[in-house]
């Protein structure tokens, strides 16, 4: 018996976003396979946040299409939002609410059947149990990141979008967070798309990398593949090559 083809987690075709005369995203196309971890890399102003905002339906594209879990994000975003979540250290949860209150509100917004039970489980996994009654504004950076993570995992999302998930964290906490994501992906088969400036993190976590510059995807591939193609030792060197318009090592040698 034929099964209908399962669409990719994300399919972006010829996506473009202009703010007046400024072209923030310029004809970007890519696909993110289900169950993969993909990084969206690029310097400041490359168009990563704008692209992620359009993937979430926070921002309407000027042209092009975005399909998430098979649904068009302009026309049918509310069909897919209960199955997606998002975490960013730059978008805070209400600081006056306690950890438990914040998670309760979002638990109900996402229609979680047993909110209290889910919060207990997540608090246990993310080592937040001791802070459940603490105001979110009184948490340390690491604790706030774990709270953001708990909120992002409340609905056990099939697709998780992470904007610099380990920014401003100490190496120990950052390592713990990466390990948690790797474990979550293995356990649930979820798809993760992350924007990061930490190239070691990307090398460790990601199957696939999309390199953005000036609103375009200028290169893509597995981290090891990119490193080989550019003839470099690390992904950070590849990033610098692209950011500074240096050609691939092989091309330079040929000249």
């Amino acid at each position, binding site marked *: 018996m034929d099964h209908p083809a399962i669409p990719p987690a994300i399919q972006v075709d010829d996506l473009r976003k202009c703010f007046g005369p400024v072209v923030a995203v310029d004809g970007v196309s890519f696909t993110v396979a289900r169950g993969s971890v993909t990084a969206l890399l690029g310097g400041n102003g490359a168009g990563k946040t704008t692209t992620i905002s359009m993937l979430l339906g926070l921002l309407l594209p000027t042209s092009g299409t975005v399909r998430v879990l098979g649904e068009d994000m302009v026309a049918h975003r509310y069909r897919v939002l209960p199955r997606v979540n998002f975490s960013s250290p730059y978008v805070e949860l209400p600081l006056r609410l306690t950890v438990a209150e914040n998670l309760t509100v*979002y638990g*109900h917004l996402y229609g979680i059947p047993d909110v209290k039970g889910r919060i207990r489980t997540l608090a246990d996994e993310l080592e937040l149990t001791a802070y459940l009654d603490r105001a979110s504004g009184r948490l340390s950076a690491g604790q706030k990141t774990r709270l953001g993570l708990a909120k992002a995992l409340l609905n056990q999302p099939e697709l998780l979008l992470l904007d610099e998930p380990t920014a401003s964290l100490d190496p120990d906490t950052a390592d713990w967070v990466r390990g948690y994501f790797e474990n979550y992906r293995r356990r649930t088969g979820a798809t993760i798309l992350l924007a990061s400036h930490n190239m070691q993190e990307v090398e460790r976590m990601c199957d696939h990398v999309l390199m953005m510059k000036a609103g375009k995807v200028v290169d893509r591939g597995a981290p090891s593949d990119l490193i080989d193609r550019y003839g470099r030792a690390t992904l950070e060197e590849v990033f610098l090559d692209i950011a500074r318009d240096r050609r691939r090592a092989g091309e330079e040698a040929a000249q």
Partner: protein
Amino acid sequence: MTPSLRRIGAMVLRHLYILRGSWPRVLEMAYWPAVNMVVWGFTSQFFMQHSTWVAQAAGVLIGAVILWDVMFRGNLGVSLSFMEEMWSRNLGHLSVSPLRPHELVAAMLTMSLIRTMIGVVPAAVLAIPLYGFSIFDLGLPLVAFWANLMMTGWAIGLGVSALVLRFGLGAESLAWVMVFAVAPLACIYYPVSALPAWLQTVAWALPPAHVFEGMRAVMFGDGLDPALLVGAFALNGLYILGTAALFLRTHHVARERGLLLTQGE
């Protein structure tokens, strides 16, 4: 409970958590209407002895100040609930959750009702022992007056929220400016006939003028003209539809311009 009601309930819960966590906020909500009522109560007692107009209806000024607070708090209940999301930079998370914009509006209106009850009911009750005036003696018309003034407050609050979403928190003072801009034409303490003829037309285009005129008619024993209530409800329906459409349209524009992630203090 439907998923939609559950999401609205979640947003109401979010604001109740804030109130629960800060008793000074709750106290403040009740404080200003009570102070207003006390000041106007003494003023009213003075005028009772020196003004034949006020003497004809004891409590006409106290009743007016209590009902004015319904509209004022109704507006603040909507606009402050929305601005709270912007102050806490929570709009981004809310906008990627399954919460629909019209559910956000419904939650803001519900919170407005709760905040208005917390603010105005204690002042109304306090007027009974202090001045022997009970606004509840207005009977059923009070429900219609209250509902209409709440609706006007909601309409102003939604308009203010739309402008704050569009222009940022620099526009937050509009929450106070807009409602006071309406006050002179709402004819809270004086009849519409006290206005110049050309301004009377403008006043009749505002629902509060119908309500306060109706309140005075009841208190002066002239009976309530149903046309006043019909006019108020019809105008409120128009204003609420207009400002709700403006808010939803502004939300759409915010998605075009990327304002949902960047707004905040």
